[in-house]
């Protein structure tokens, strides 16, 4: 129709550019697309050795996945954040890398009064803040006082000061803490001491995240230089650190939300260190050049915790744990059906130790293992017998029936983010299925809600055990129960056992190390017998680093220990750069080469595009 054609020509002039615009974008975009394609095919770009930055600086890059919750020492609770703060703010004391006993930090020595209610710390005079000011006892006093008076400043470490009566600094080198009652953690106060002259200007502590003004004034081995959320955290060596400056010039925590991406980055040398490896990753890295896999006994245990009927200290019961689990025989039967050897062999592929007692073998002083006749070894027949004996018989369909006449199905809480939970859960489902017990594996991103409400039957549970088992033992005392169902207690899974409590209290008051260790073992033995906490495995800390970037690094404990998530700052402070190549072929030249490559590729793209167009036109003419 000619009208259409006319209309085409009669279009108002002003409209034409509107049609032009997309075409221009089209051309440009296509060139760029070609460039991309060409870039892929160009075997030039040198991407490796990214970890080495410009101008010959020695950079140590650590791959991390966890997001920083806050960089304020008063708010941060996540491992990644507290690890970074450990490096930027010195504490009063530190832990010895060999056996974790208290060693000097900002305090050079400390002394309790006879009644253990007044502690006097001598503060070193050779420590300075990174802005040049001296670190004094006044800074420490201010930090503690702030936490005691401002609830918002007590968010992260408030538990350390709840018992504090008064904190004063009689002189710049003397700090005095008065207590309401004796406190065991006085030589392990994991509280970053902040500079008063900076922090007293902060208004609302609940909203101040300490991530706007860089560099952040600190006193640790590294100074916080830069932070880009979920991208990187950059630290610079503190040349004036009193213990001696780290040998690396920079420490960068770089984000890899995906574990495989982190491993790939390690293989390429983009990062120097990766933690939390899976068995498959560890095995594939094991044989590679310039990479050392650190497969060390871990400080964690993985257990199957039983809900023993959630309750508060005031005696009120809540939650809806399965009544059959109140029977010790049932709990033990469930554990008897678990073949730990298979779990170690298949799920961890050898990167773990079979679980027994509550304390990992790494802590030999307190490590306890059951005797042969006490041990709940894998024995499905015995498990079935115990269940029969407890009165949970199989019905006609082969399902065991509860007292309410319904088939038993246990809800098992698992962490959706932990692949091992899910894997072990599948084994349990089949093993218990053979016993005639159903299982509903409930994998959640955040288990704390049903956990605290007691609305589960069993749960995957794991804790990092400190050198002193005090805190993990406390979790299972009646004292740790919440005061009322509305509170949140320190308790792990609502265990309250009189015999255990008795042993706990006795070890708490015991000063003789050998006797205390014996009492701890008895407590662990009791816990084992109750069947409330069934430890299945002690997973290893599986990490890897590049030996062409890191020459040496301190593990903790020094013999065979972990690197990431230590109690002190030893690993990153002690790491020494390898002198092989590395730092010389800096990223500067890599950047330039990348630039050249991109330029060439772009030109090639434009050329190619033009050529294509000409050909296209020629074809059309035919």
């Amino acid at each position, binding site marked *: 129709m000619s009208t259409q054609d006319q209309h085409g020509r009669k279009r108002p002039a002003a409209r034409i550019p509107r049609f032009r615009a997309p075409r221009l974008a089209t051309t440009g975009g296509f060139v760029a697309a070609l460039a991309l394609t060409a870039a892929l095919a160009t075997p030039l770009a040198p991407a490796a050795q990214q970890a080495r930055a410009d101008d010959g600086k020695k950079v140590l890059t650590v791959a991390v996945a966890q997001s920083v919750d806050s960089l304020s020492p008063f708010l941060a609770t996540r491992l990644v954040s507290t690890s970074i703060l450990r490096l930027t703010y010195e504490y009063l004391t530190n832990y010895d890398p060999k056996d974790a006993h208290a060693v000097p930090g900002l305090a050079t020595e400390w002394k309790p009064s006879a009644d253990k209610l007044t502690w006097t710390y001598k503060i070193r005079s050779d420590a300075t803040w990174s802005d040049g000011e001296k670190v004094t006892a006044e800074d420490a006093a201010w930090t503690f006082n702030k936490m005691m008076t401002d609830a918002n400043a007590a968010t992260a470490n408030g538990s350390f000061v709840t018992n504090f009566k008064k904190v004063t600094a009689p002189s710049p080198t003397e700090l005095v803490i008065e207590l309401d009652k004796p406190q065991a953690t006085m030589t392990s106060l994991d509280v970053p001491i902040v500079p008063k002259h900076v922090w007293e200007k902060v208004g609302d502590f609940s909203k101040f995240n300490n991530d706007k003004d860089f560099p952040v004034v600190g006193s640790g081995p590294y100074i916080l230089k830069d932070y880009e959320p979920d991208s990187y955290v950059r630290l610079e060596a503190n040349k004036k650190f009193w213990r001696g400056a780290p040998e690396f010039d920079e420490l960068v925590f770089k*984000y*890899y939300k995906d574990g495989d991406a982190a491993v790939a980055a390690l293989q390429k040398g983009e990062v120097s260190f990766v933690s939390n490896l899976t068995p498959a990753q560890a095995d594939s890295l094991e044989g590679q050049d310039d990479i050392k896999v650190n497969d060390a006994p871990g400080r964690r245990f993985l257990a199957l915790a039983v809900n023993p009927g959630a309750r508060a200290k005031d005696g009120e019961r809540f939650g809806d744990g399965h009544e059959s689990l109140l029977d010790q025989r049932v709990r033990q039967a469930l554990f008897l059906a678990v073949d730990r050897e298979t779990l170690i062999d298949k799920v961890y592929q050898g990167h773990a130790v079979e679980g027994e007692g509550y304390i990992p073998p790494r802590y030999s002083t307190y490590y306890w293992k059951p005797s042969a006749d006490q041990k709940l070894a894998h024995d499905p027949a015995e498990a079935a017998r115990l269940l029969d004996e407890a009165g949970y018989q199989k019905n006609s369909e082969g399902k065991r029936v509860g007292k309410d006449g319904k088939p038993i199905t246990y809800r098992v809480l698992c962490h959706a983010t932990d692949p091992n939970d899910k894997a072990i859960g599948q084994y349990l489902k089949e093993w218990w299925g053979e016993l005639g017990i159903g299982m509903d594996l409930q994998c959640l991103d955040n288990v704390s809600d049903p956990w605290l409400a007691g609305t589960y039957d069993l749960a995957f549970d794991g804790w990092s055990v400190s050198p002193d088992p005090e805190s993990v033992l406390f979790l299972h005392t009646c004292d740790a129960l919440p005061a009322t169902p509305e509170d949140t207690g320190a308790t792990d899974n609502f265990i309250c056992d009189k015999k255990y409590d008795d042993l706990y209290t006795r070890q708490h008051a015991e000063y003789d190390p050998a006797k205390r260790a014996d009492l701890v073992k008895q407590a662990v033995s009791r816990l084992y017998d109750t069947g409330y906490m069934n430890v299945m495995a002690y997973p290893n800390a599986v990490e890897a680093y590049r030996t062409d970037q890191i020459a040496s690094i301190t593990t903790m404990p020094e013999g065979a220990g972990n690197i990431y998530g230590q109690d002190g700052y030893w690993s990153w402070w002690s790491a020494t750069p390898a002198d092989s190549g590395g730092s010389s072929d800096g990223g500067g030249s890599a950047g330039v080469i990348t630039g050249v490559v991109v330029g060439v590729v772009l030109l090639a793209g434009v050329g190619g595009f033009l050529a294509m167009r000409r050909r296209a036109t020629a074809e059309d*003419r035919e």
Partner: protein
Amino acid sequence: MTADAVSAPAGQADGPAPAAAPPVRGPRARTWAGYLRYGAGKVGGAAVSLFAVLVTSFFLFRLIPGDPVKTMTGGRPVSAEQLAALRREFGLDLPLWQQFTDYCGKALTGDLGTSYQFRAPVTEKIADALPNTLLLTGTAFVLYTALGIVIGTRSAWRQGRLGDRLNTGLALTLYSLPSFWLGLLLIIVFSVGMGPVPGLFPTGGMESGGEQGFAHVLDVAHHLVLPVLTLVAVEYGQTLLVTRSALLDETGSDYLTTARAKGLRDDAVRRRHAVPNALLPTVTLIFVNLGRTVAGVILVETVFSWPGLGGLFYQALSVPDLPLVQGLFLFFASAVIVMNTVADLVYPLLDPRVGR
């Protein structure tokens, strides 16, 4: 695959974009006054949609079982008084309807609350991550749109020939790939290096950190290649197919025959007459896609550790960090709604049949 995966295939052969309102032709849009009336209607509709999204974002995530305050404290021992104080701080002690009106009132003033886990304003977290997401999706968007239109045009012009069949087939195949899977494979091949291919590109993240100036730009560009490639590969097919079918609708038109009869070169006919008209349905798709790509980038951001909104959303959901989840949901949905509205508003302006 991104959000498009759910509903897009239906749109492919449907000509006009799947999510777009039917093109408005007719008396209503013929005059400027008509256009203004039409525009006001569209904007009004968008406002209603935005409000509906506000309601959803508030109530949907309240369905996640559990007590946000206990979640916030992450199982640490906390007394009932402290929990109550936290509840007051975040306004969780108020009746639901009051929380809702507060939320709406604040949202109107641009205040989306404070993130539980980061203790920072939600708007600030979004503003931090937004440029990164925009950089990634913007680059990918320009590329796949351009690629889709160019190849789609060529394909349609040579309909049925080998080139067309290869192109359409390739587009359909790439379109069927799960984007996260393609991303993982690209990492294996081009980041880790495989066989003769050296590791050319970074495995993840957006920057190495530490570079300044031009070096920084190059560094980011270097990190951008693989995620953009992934997005382009899975996304360009849709644009291609829509462009192609739109153009095929046009190629039968008499005015093209006339134009050829006048002796115009094929190329000129295509460029001056067919493509501009055929692009119309594509324009709608383009805007809709822009909004959707922002929302659908979650997977690619996860695979490539890109510090953008998608990763933030996923992280917020797993806590769950209600204010952040709500804020992001609101943002994603608003992006789509706004882009849709823009498409609706632009369409009649571009349609040459308007103002006849």
